[in-house]
C-alpha cells in the first residue's frame, strides 16, 4: 500500500483537509481527488504549461509538484480567477473578445500564467508577452489571439484600476 499523509491546503479560498498518497502530483490530487478539473494535464513533464497554477501567488507547474508539498500553502486555479459566478475576470473577457481560445485546452495555463505576469508587469510590450507565454504550448497555434488578449487585458486592468 502506498504511503499517505494528511494535508491542509487552501484552493481558491476554500480550505481542504485531505489524506493523499505521497506520490500524487498536485495536479492529480486536485483533478482526481477534489474534482477540480479546470487545471489541465497535457504533457505531465513540465513542458506544455497547461497545468500552471499559482502557488502563494507565483506560477508553478502543478504536474511538477507533489500534493504533499502544497500542505499549508495557498493555491489559485483557473476556477478561482473570476470574481463571481456571474462575472468574468477582465483577462477572461479579453480572451473571449480577442478569440484567445480555440479548443481551450491550454487556456487554464495561459490565464494563470498571465495573471501573474500582468500583476508584475502591468504595461507589457508584445515581445514581453510572447516571452511570458513561451512556457505554454497552444497546439491550435492560436498565439496571435492569445497575445492580443493579453495586451487588451493589460489595458482593461489598467482602466479598472484608474476608475474611481
Amino acid at each position, binding site marked *: 500500500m502506498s504511503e499517505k499523509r494528511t494535508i491542509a491546503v487552501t484552493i481558491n479560498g476554500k480550505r481542504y483537509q485531505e489524506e493523499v498518497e505521497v*506520490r500524487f502530483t498536485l495536479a*492529480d490530487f486536485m483533478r482526481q481527488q477534489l474534482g477540480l478539473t479546470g487545471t489541465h494535464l497535457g504533457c*505531465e513533464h513540465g513542458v506544455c504549461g497547461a497545468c500552471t497554477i499559482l502557488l502563494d501567488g*507565483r506560477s*508553478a507547474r502543478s*504536474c*511538477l509538484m507533489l500534493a504533499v508539498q502544497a500542505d499549508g500553502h495557498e493555491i489559485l486555479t483557473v476556477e478561482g480567477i473570476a470574481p463571481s459566478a456571474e462575472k468574468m475576470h477582465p483577462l477572461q473577457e479579453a480572451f473571449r473578445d480577442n478569440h484567445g481560445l480555440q479548443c481551450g485546452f491550454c487556456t487554464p495555463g495561459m490565464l494563470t500564467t498571465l495573471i501573474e505576469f500582468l500583476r508584475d508587469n502591468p504595461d507589457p510590450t508584445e515581445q514581453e508577452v510572447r516571452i511570458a507565454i513561451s*512556457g505554454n504550448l497552444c497546439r491550435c497555434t492560436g498565439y496571435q489571439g492569445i497575445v492580443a488578449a493579453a495586451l487588451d487585458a493589460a489595458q482593461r486592468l489598467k482602466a479598472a484600476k484608474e476608475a474611481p
Partner: protein
Amino acid sequence: MKPPPFSYHDPRTVDDAVGLLNRLENAKLLAGGQSLMPMLNMRYVLPDHVIDLNKVEALSFLRETDGVLEVGAMTRQRDIEFSDAVKARFPLIHEAILNVGHRQTRNRGTVGGSLCHLDPSAELVTMAAAHDATVTVVGPNGKRDIPFAEFPVAFMTTALELNELLTAVRFPRWPTGHGYGFVEFARRHGDFAIASAAALLEEDANGKIKRASLTLGGVGVLPVRMREVEKALVGQTASEDLFRQLCEECRKVDAIEDVHAPASYRQHLAAVLSRRALVSAHGRVGRA
C-alpha cells in the same frame, strides 16, 4: 506518467537531511523538482525514498560578502532573477538566468538542484564554471568545499558522495567595469540550449585584455572552459577580428551528438557563439 510509490521525508534541518541521506538506501533528494519530478513522472528514476529539502529553511539565502556572492542550494532561480545585487554586480548571471526555462519553472527551480542535476546545457552550471565558483557540500563527516572545476566528473555526474548534500555555491565577483556576455542558441525561448557561450572580460584603459573567461554550455558532456583561448586573449587588444580568429579553436571541442544537432553543428555554434559572447562582453566593458 505517474510517480512510482516511495516513502516521503521532509526534514527541517541540514543535519536531519544528511542523516536521512546517510541512513536510507536508494534515496533521492528533491529540491525544486523541475528535473526530478518529470523523471519520476516518466519513471526514469525509481527511488525508495524521496527526501524533500523544501522545508530546510537554512538552505534558502542569497548574500554578498567581501566580493563573493553566496547562494544557498534551495534558493529559487527566480530569486536570482530579481536580485538587485546579482543584476548590478554579477550581470552575466542575471543575463543567463533569463534563459533558464520559464517563469513558472524558475519560481520553483533551485540553484542547488540545477548544479547537482548537472545537465550540460544548464545555464547555472555554465555560470558556476565561468565564475570559478566553489560549492560547499555537507556529509555525515562534516563540510567540505569543492572548486567547481572539480565538481563535474562525468555526464550528469558530480563529485558528491552518495551521502553528501550540496548546501551553497559561492561566485567570486569580477571587478567593477568588467564586460560580460551570454548568448544561447535554442529552438524556442526557454528550451534547453543546443549550445551557449559565456564570456567575462577585464580590459585596461587602452582596450588591452587583462583577464578573460570563456565557457561553452551544451556543447560537451560537461561545461567546457576554453582555457587556451582565455590565455591567448590576455595581453591582446580586443577586437572582433581577434575574437573571430581565436574562437576557431572552439570548433575542436569534443561535442555531443543527439537528436537536436550533430556534433559538427554544435562545434560550429561553439565558435560563432563564443565570438558573439566576447563581442558582447567587450562592448560592455566599463558599463558593468
